[in-house]
């Protein structure tokens, strides 16, 4: 039963390396990046039910970490990966500690993350340290040693590695004690606390883990497009996309975000051939989200679960 799935997965994952069409490789790369970011959101929002509306905070933190390390301190961009892991986790831990200590959950948590994202956007838009609204250009210097790839397949490889990492984290959550605690507090906080779960600590760690991983995506963005600005980094659209990918595929499942990203990117590509305006594909995402919430609260992966049961 599982073997054919693994084969299909491997073909899909490794296929792009054999492709020469730049547009197909680009499609594969964007899909994998979306799946990775959705998986990062899923770690907090799916497994822990911490519905964040501001997850781009961590993406932007990673992007600025990469840009500032290079342009201000002249460090090698590969160092941005561990650095972003640290800055992303710290930001996650700080926001988590503040919000969860204050007892914010559900809609209130969603709103406070949205507000934090706005604070980050305004700050990065006005501080000299981040070069304000001008954004930061990363000087061109193609080469693997400089974490800049002329061939999109290399970028794809890095994105795929990130996706494997985040999915491994999700799979670990599925079977380890920490994940069980996270799922328990998602279902019922009082009962989880009564059985010995430290709510604030568990949720804060989940947000830090999710934040650290998300920041890696920001580094990859900065190294791919060589430009970072406040709207790209902290705009609400990316937060919403991360949430959509996870919710549509199946929040709280290991494979849901990957499925969600594939579906969304197919919708985007197909719809672009019908009506090519900037709002049309996102509009369809919204419709799909409403349909999923109404009919398949476990996401698209719920179809598979139902069929198997």
């Amino acid at each position: 039963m599982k073997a054919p799935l693994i084969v299909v997965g491997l073909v899909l994952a490794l296929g792009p390396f054999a492709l020469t069409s730049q547009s197909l490789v680009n499609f594969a790369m964007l899909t994998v990046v979306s799946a990775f970011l959705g998986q990062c959101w899923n770690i907090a929002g799916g497994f822990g039910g911490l519905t964040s509306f501001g997850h781009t905070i961590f993406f932007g933190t990673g992007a600025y970490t990469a840009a500032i390390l290079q342009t201000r301190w002249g460090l090698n961009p590969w160092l941005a990966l561990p650095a972003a892991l640290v800055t992303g986790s710290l930001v996650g831990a700080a926001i988590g500690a503040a919000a969860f200590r204050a007892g914010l959950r559900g809609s209130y948590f969603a709103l406070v993350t949205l507000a934090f994202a706005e604070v980050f956007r305004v700050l990065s838009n006005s501080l000299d340290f981040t070069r304000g609204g001008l954004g930061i250009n990363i000087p061109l210097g193609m080469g693997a040693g400089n974490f800049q790839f002329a061939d999109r397949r290399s970028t794809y490889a890095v994105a795929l590695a990130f996706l494997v990492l985040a999915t491994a984290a999700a799979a670990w959550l599925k079977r380890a004690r920490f994940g069980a605690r996270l799922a328990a507090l998602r279902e019922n906080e009082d009962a989880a606390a009564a059985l010995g779960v430290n709510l604030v600590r568990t949720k804060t760690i989940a947000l830090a883990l999710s934040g650290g991983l998300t920041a890696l995506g920001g580094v990859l963005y900065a190294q791919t497009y060589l430009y970072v600005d406040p709207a790209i980094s902290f705009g609400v659209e990316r937060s919403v996309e991360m949430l959509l990918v996870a919710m549509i595929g199946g929040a709280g499942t290991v494979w849901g975000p990957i499925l969600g990203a594939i579906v969304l990117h197919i919708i985007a590509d197909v719809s672009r051939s019908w009506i090519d305006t900037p709002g049309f594909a996102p509009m369809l995402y919204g419709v799909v989200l409403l349909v999923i919430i109404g009919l398949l609260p476990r996401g698209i992966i719920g179809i598979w679960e139902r069929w198997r049961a």
Partner: protein
Amino acid sequence: MAEIYAAALINGLLIGGVYALVALGLTLIYGVLHIVNFAHGSLLMVAMFAAWLMAEKAGVHPYAALPVVALAMFALGWLLYRYVIGRVSRGEDRAILLATLGVAVVLDNVFLTLFGGDTRQIESDLTFAVIEAGPLLLSVPKVIAFAVSLLLAGALWAFMALTDTGRAIRAVAKEPEGARLMGIRPERIFALAYGIGIGCLGAAGCLLLPSFFVSPHVGNVFVLVAFTIVVLGGMGSFPGAVVGGLLIGVTESLGGLWLGESLGPIGISLVFIAVLLFRPTGLFGAAR
């Protein structure tokens, strides 16, 4: 110097009046349905577009269009709750939140698809008209928006306090099950309250347009402002929404003055975060 502050203060109060009307709709929806209506900013955008279309295509001034747009927005809100949000969410908190987010995403992008991302304004004799009040120059459309907003807020309050429908809404807000026993059907009241909350946006859209711009993204500007007001005033509190609206209008205006154009908007987000973290019941909310 004092005049600059006075001008900023007055301007903040004036815009705060419209904010209050926007927040009133949001707090009504929260108070009755106990849902966080994330689509609020996007629905205000729709109202502003409706007012803009009436002005551009039919030549109707937004003030004249106000009753029509408010009614149309009421109908849109009622339909949205009845056939989308209420259906899709099955009463689960997270599903409701995501359903209103889904509605916001759809609305924003429908308008982006139809009208593109440009910002639009209307040309009107009133747009740049001012009244001299001592040393201060007051923008006429803002004064009108302020006065009409507060008038409408008062009318809404009277409606809730004095009419049978208003009493039924308040009964459902307090005790949905008790209201059901008295023969009130909560689902109807929910759709009605959602419609009224969105109707407020119809009026607010018409009042804002002569002094503001509209674009498909304008909802993002307002959604955080509206939530800040409602949280500051206390979720579900009418006087809280009005006082909160005025306070946030002034905060925004003085924030712009002290912190400058780019850093100024941070004031509202910081107020929002601080209230949520340190006083989640707001100024007028009952203790949890």
